[in-house]
Every structure is written in C-alpha cells, then in structure tokens.
C-alpha cells in the first residue's frame, strides 16, 4: 500500500504556524518478530520522512522499528509564502512514497 494521507490547511496567513498531520500505510516490520517456526521476520520499515517547502527542507524525522505501523507523524511549520510542500517517505527494500500539497499564503 504506497498510500499516504496528508492533512494540512490549504491556506494560511503569512507567519501563521500551521500543523501538518501525515499518515503512511506501512507495516513497519520490526525485525524482532519470529514466525511460528522460529525464523526471524526481516526488518522492513520506513526510516526517513522529510518535508520541503518550496524546495527548502523544513522538517525531518528518522524512524526506527519502535514506531507503530501505519506511522503518524505530525509537526508544525511557519506559513512563509504560497507554494508547494513536498513530503517524502523512504525506507527499507527501496520503499518510497511522495505527496505534494499546495498552500496559499496571504
């Protein structure tokens, strides 16, 4: 499921601090679980999340196996100007997901 959901305001006043809430569909397999036969289930997690605002990175999070499945990451950023926010998730086994959202700042 390369499915992500991003919730953020479509418009804001200049200088306003907005909250952005994101969800990514991912099992976040820890690498510590074992099968019924005792074999270790290999780790498969999202390791990095970044948010860029008109090309400048404004937030970054490094994730570990202790992050619950279907990770929620919510953070804030200052609405500085109109433009595009780019969200990127990457992880084990070449996992990659992106999302773009436009914001109007007046």
């Amino acid at each position, binding site marked *: 499921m390369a499915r992500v959901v991003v919730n953020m305001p479509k418009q804001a006043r200049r200088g306003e601090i907005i909250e952005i809430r994101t969800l990514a569909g991912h099992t976040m397999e*820890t690498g510590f679980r074992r099968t019924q036969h005792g074999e270790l289930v290999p780790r498969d997690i999202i390791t990095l999340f970044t948010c860029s605002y008109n090309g400048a990175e404004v937030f970054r999070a490094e994730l570990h196996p*202790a992050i619950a499945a279907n990770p929620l990451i919510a953070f804030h950023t200052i609405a500085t100007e109109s433009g595009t926010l780019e969200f990127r998730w990457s992880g084990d086994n070449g996992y990659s997901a992106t999302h773009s959202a436009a914001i109007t700042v007046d």
Partner: protein
Amino acid sequence: MTTRRQFLVLAGGTIAAGAAQAQLPPNIEALRKAALADAVRKSTGGAEVRRGRVKLDVPPLIDNGNSVALVVEVESPMTAADHVKAIHVFTEKNPQPYIITARFGPRAGRARITTRARIADSGLIIAIAEMSDRSFWSDSVSVVVTLSACLEDGLI
C-alpha cells in the same frame, strides 16, 4: 569444578551465540540499560542532559503497547539564534532503545512532534531535546503497558 570465572566466560559464550536462539539472554535487562545509555550518549555526544523545558505526553496506562500516542513539545522561541535542533525519543524496555529523532529549524514555528510508538513493556520513555546552543534537556514518563487479554497467536 567450574570456577566462577569459567562459568562467566561460558555464560558469555552462550550469550554471544544467543542470536541463533529464540531465548533471551539472562542479563537482558543489563544489556538493554547499556544500549539505552549508549544511544543517549551517541545522540548527546556525552554532554550533560538536564531535566526541564521538555514536555513528554504519553498516556500513563496504555490500551495496547502496539500503538502508544506520543507527543513531545519543547519550550523555545524557535528563532534563528535560539531554537530546538532535534528531539530524540527513547524507551528502556524495547529490543532496541530508539523511537524517533525529529529535526527542526527556525522555520518550524513550534518544536513539537506527534507520533505513535510501540512500547514492549512497562517502563520509561525518555525525550531529549538538543538546542541550538548545544545544551540538552529532557523529560521522561513511566508507563504501564497492559497486553490484550486475548492474543491472536499469529492466526488470522
């Protein structure tokens, strides 16, 4: 007769080979404490960590350790001159101590991160904030994790 030293060496050898076994090593608590201390040291560079300025919000009694709501907020003007650079979150009873590291700059507005963690057992969750002046501040919460009464045992 096995001397105490011989016994400890044998035990150490068994622990080293433990990766192939499903049993946890007998000194697991000591190992995890050491791993946590090591992770904190790596994140702080060995600097002093003071309590304060950080507010870690976790429910003290947890419905299910698979998904624990976690909010960390740090008081800071978040200016270019004075801001939170990173928030590191750890836990003491998990197989590995790291939960998340969030990195901020003055464009963040607020030094606050919300996520959901997996907490394996009742114990401490620790949040450490790294400031732009290279000081470190922390908060910790002791949580109680209850398990689901009816476990699935891998059956769908």
